[in-house]
């Protein structure tokens, strides 16, 4: 299964980005192969509007089944939910830490957006 993380870096030790739509990169981790790929989000970082929507589409296209990020706004939530992607909010410092929280069953699936747009 693939899990998408938001990050400002490009490794498992990199910080978990608290933003979703305007995160620098997405790290797509594959739990089967224990490998990951980095996806650049520069286009949405500079989008005039709708960054969360576009970012959600980007994540959906990777085939990820869940997303772990700091926060998720209402529009991104709607798109991710439509794509059947489960959303988990985490306050972990790094991607590796967030992954461990998930594997340990410490993260709870979000039922709603946890912040307003443009928080």
């Amino acid at each position, binding site marked *: 299964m693939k899990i998408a993380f938001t990050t400002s870096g490009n490794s498992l030790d990199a910080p978990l980005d608290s933003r979703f739509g305007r995160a620098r990169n997405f790290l797509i981790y594959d739990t089967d192969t224990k490998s990951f790929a980095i996806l650049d989000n520069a286009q949405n970082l500079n*989008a*005039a*509007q*709708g*960054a969360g*929507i*576009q970012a*959600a*589409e980007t994540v*959906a296209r990777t085939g990820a089944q869940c997303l772990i990020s700091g926060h998720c706004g209402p*529009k991104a939530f*709607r*798109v991710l939910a*439509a*794509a059947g992607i489960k959303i988990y909010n985490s306050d972990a410092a790094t991607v590796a830490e967030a992954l461990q929280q998930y594997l340990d069953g410490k993260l709870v699936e979000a039922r709603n957006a946890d912040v307003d747009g443009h928080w």
Partner: protein
Amino acid sequence: MKEAKQWEGTALTIAVASGKGGTGKTTVSLNLAKAYGAPIQLLDCDVEEPNCHLFLNGTAEAEETVFIPIPQVDESLCNACGECSRFCQYNAIASLGTKPLVFPELCHGCGGCALVCPQKAIIEVDKRIGAVGTMQAGDITLIQGRIDVGVAMAPPLVRAVKARLQPGMPAILDAPPGTSCPVIAAIRDTDFVVLVTEPTPFGLHDLKLAVDMVRELKLPFGVVVNRMGAGDDRVHLFCRQAGVPILLEIPDDRRIAEAYSRGELLVDALPEYRGLFSGLQDKLRSLAAAGRR
């Protein structure tokens, strides 16, 4: 009157804009219109906070609702190809292998998604964004746009206000502040732009942005300095160095603010200032004519 008729003969459209808010666009627009002395149109394009009507007594005519077309997807025809989503520069429609999701509040109403849809699964439906109204107050025909609360899409409404402009009659157009899309929509296709500023560091900073904007649009323009004496001389230095004409200086006179706060026009409340605005008209006429050549 003779001068006014000449101006009328050329039927100029003068936009009054500014980088900084609160510099006196509405004051200049209203007094210019009032001092004109013949039938003239005043367009309040500051659709997020229209206020010209507060200074005019007249009869309001029927309002018209303004809509933009937004996409509606017929799920039975959609094959989830995602063309609509790839086309939309505003991320207003998202496709994820299912029926596309529409975000009406982000849609600019361009209709592109419906055009590119190979399945013809998208039709356009109207979404209300605000209203345009007209008021007759003496010689002044006020055309005013008012955007609905919660709507962020001002340019289509600004264009709806401008669509009511009667050709052949001069017009003064009170633009929104700033240098972004609603301002561009307002000042585009006008004959001359008056940039109102104040002699303060903030006024100068935003004046520079506004000058860059009108130069980019290749529109002839000049500056009105409001509240002269309130700040320093840096706006004047900038205008001299940049070759920008200063058309008018309005003094920093407390009585002007007091008249404004009572909803009175400067040219009515303080007749000694009437000459400033008729002088401004003369300059506008000759500069706009030069700009057309």
